[in-house]
């Protein structure tokens, strides 16, 4: 449509023939002005800052980003640091378990709620409220529950069950599971809501057809409904996945990386080295590694969803 959107206040040389460049800027001006924050964000933050970080990760900056170029030095240091390696393995382990369990528990809960039960909204409310809470709150309350002397372990022992152990939070080999319990508590309700929406989008008549065919309910869920939920599953995986990479608050609150470094995660490593370790180069290298991981997962997914047959969701 025509340039009807040029605001009245624009004193442009309309009498003279506008150059092509000027025409480009004037056309649809209000929209462009309105989009400045978005454009700025994209250019400065998402593109600019990322490139900056990647570039300076190749320097030996310590307290200030002024170091000189040292190639892959920081990265070699990174992978020689046990704290980093532990962080990475922790994230892999936690991530895999969290993804699987969140999906499974979320799916099971969704199926349970889908069974035309009474008090459905009550159950839903109960399962979803943890999602409304901060990770800090989550971490702290579970830290208290898992307190060996006064929490669950201590209580049950005092009540007579002297052999009961639940000191995962203080046990370097089990601390990831402690994290998992808190993380699942926070996130499964949300996954359940997603899955439930997916379940409910299945046409009623498909259920009727399965019933006439004599297919038992559980089999219908697994063989017919689940394959129909591909879109929801992908969405759930993407969201859970992106949350896992960012894992930080929960660790800070629950264990602060401890005991020792047994529950360190990359996000925390980055933060510590960047702001309190006096070694910016290391922090930036670690951050770049986080970026790389995300890209490795994202690009195939993006290609699958948007590339390939050129279809859009």
């Amino acid at each position: 449509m025509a340039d009807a959107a040029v605001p009245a206040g624009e004193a442009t040389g309309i009498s003279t023939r506008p150059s092509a460049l000027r025409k480009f800027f004037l056309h649809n001006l209000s929209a462009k002005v309105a989009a400045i924050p978005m454009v700025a964000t994209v250019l400065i933050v998402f593109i600019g800052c990322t490139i900056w970080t990647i570039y300076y990760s190749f320097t030996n900056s310590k307290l200030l980003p002024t170091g000189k170029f040292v190639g892959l030095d920081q990265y070699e240091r990174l992978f020689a640091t046990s704290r980093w390696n532990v962080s990475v393995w922790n994230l892999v382990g936690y991530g895999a378990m969290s993804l699987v369990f969140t999906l499974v528990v979320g799916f099971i809960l969704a199926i349970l709620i889908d069974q035309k039960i009474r008090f459905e909204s009550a159950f839903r409310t109960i399962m979803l409220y943890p999602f409304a809470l901060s990770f800090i709150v989550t971490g702290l309350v579970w830290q208290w529950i898992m307190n060996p002397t006064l929490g669950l372990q201590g209580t049950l022992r005092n009540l007579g069950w002297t052999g009961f152990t639940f000191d995962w939070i203080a046990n370097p080999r089990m601390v990831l599971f402690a994290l998992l319990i808190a993380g699942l508590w926070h996130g499964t309700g949300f996954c359940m809501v997603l899955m439930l929406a997916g379940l409910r989008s299945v046409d009623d008549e498909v259920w009727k057809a399965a019933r006439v065919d004599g297919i038992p309910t559980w089999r219908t869920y697994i063989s017919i409904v689940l394959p129909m939920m591909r879109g929801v599953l992908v969405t759930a995986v993407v969201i859970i996945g992106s949350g896992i990479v960012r894992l930080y608050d929960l660790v800070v609150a629950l264990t602060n990386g401890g005991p020792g470094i047994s529950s360190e995660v990359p996000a925390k490593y980055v933060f510590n080295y960047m702001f309190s370790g006096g070694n910016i180069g290391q922090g930036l290298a670690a951050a770049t590694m986080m970026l790389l991981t995300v890209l490795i997962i994202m690009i195939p997914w993006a290609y699958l969803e948007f590339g390939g047959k050129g279809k859009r969701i």
Partner: protein
Amino acid sequence: MQTSVSIKDLSLNFGSVKVLEHLNLDIAQGEFIVLLGPSGCGKSTLLNCIAGLLEVSDGQIFINGKNVTWKEPKDRGIGMVFQSYALYPQMTVEKNLSFGLRVAGMPKDEIKARVERAAEILQIGPLLQRKPANLSGGQRQRVAIGRALVRDVDVFLFDEPLSNLDAKLRSDLRVEIKRLHQRLKNTMIYVTHDQIEALTLADRIAIMKNGVIQQLADPHVIYNKPTNLYVAGFIGSPSMNFLSGTLQGEIFTADDGTKIPVGAYDFAAPAPGSAKAVLGVRPEHIFLGDAANAMPFKTPAEIEIVEPMGSETLAWTKVAGIPVTFRCSSDIPLAVGDKVTIGFDIARGSLFDAKSENRL
């Protein structure tokens, strides 16, 4: 004749709403019966009750002599075809057809035999490895019918199967369903709101309104001798013309005074003394010109609107002050304002009591 499906005293309430009330229906073996009515009349509900997908509030359902009122759909010996086809989207056609049989533990070769037979009957052989998303509407519906076929049951239930298809496909598939019935000779219970489907497919039609069967008869009877005003108005397109007036003995006096002798009418009971009545005549039973002169009742009329339909012409005029339509051949030139003579034979029409709306 053996009864295939028998419904006794069926009632269904949703909360306080009485959807079906004391319904009785006997369907013969091999019969093609159509449940016809507008949305909300209870026809789909009745079908779902027969299928076992809805639980009844009272009454019983018998299929092939067995009381299936408390039985699960899979144990009732029925197959069902749905309006939205309801195919399992992530399975191939072949898997769609065989899934129920596999779950039941049938031996592989028997499954294969049944699938092939269904594919042959419905001509979906080349489609067996495709997924529903890659099928046309008509193909999907055939697969849906196939899924019912492989179950090797006696009774087929159709829930408005053609409503999702466009007009051309609808008429094609309609013929196929009729062919299928001729070949298989199974009992088929078919729900639709489309009277054309009902008239063309049914052995008997059950017209339903508000959960009650208004008339249960073969298409010819329903068309020519509708049992009440509702059925008369529902069947037939364009619909029947209605003239209200008073019936006294053998004379029907329309509201504006026009007298129409109705002695030739086939009264169910002796003609009542005097009652308010409605006289109904179908547009195709009203004749024009010379043919009209041969009719027992004729009247002059002025053409008000002409609707040329290609194969014939529909004309609007007034009789006794009431708008009336009639059909005539498209060869006859008609124009607005023409003064013509039209007539009809009351023996082919219908008389209804104005108060009870029942056929006299």
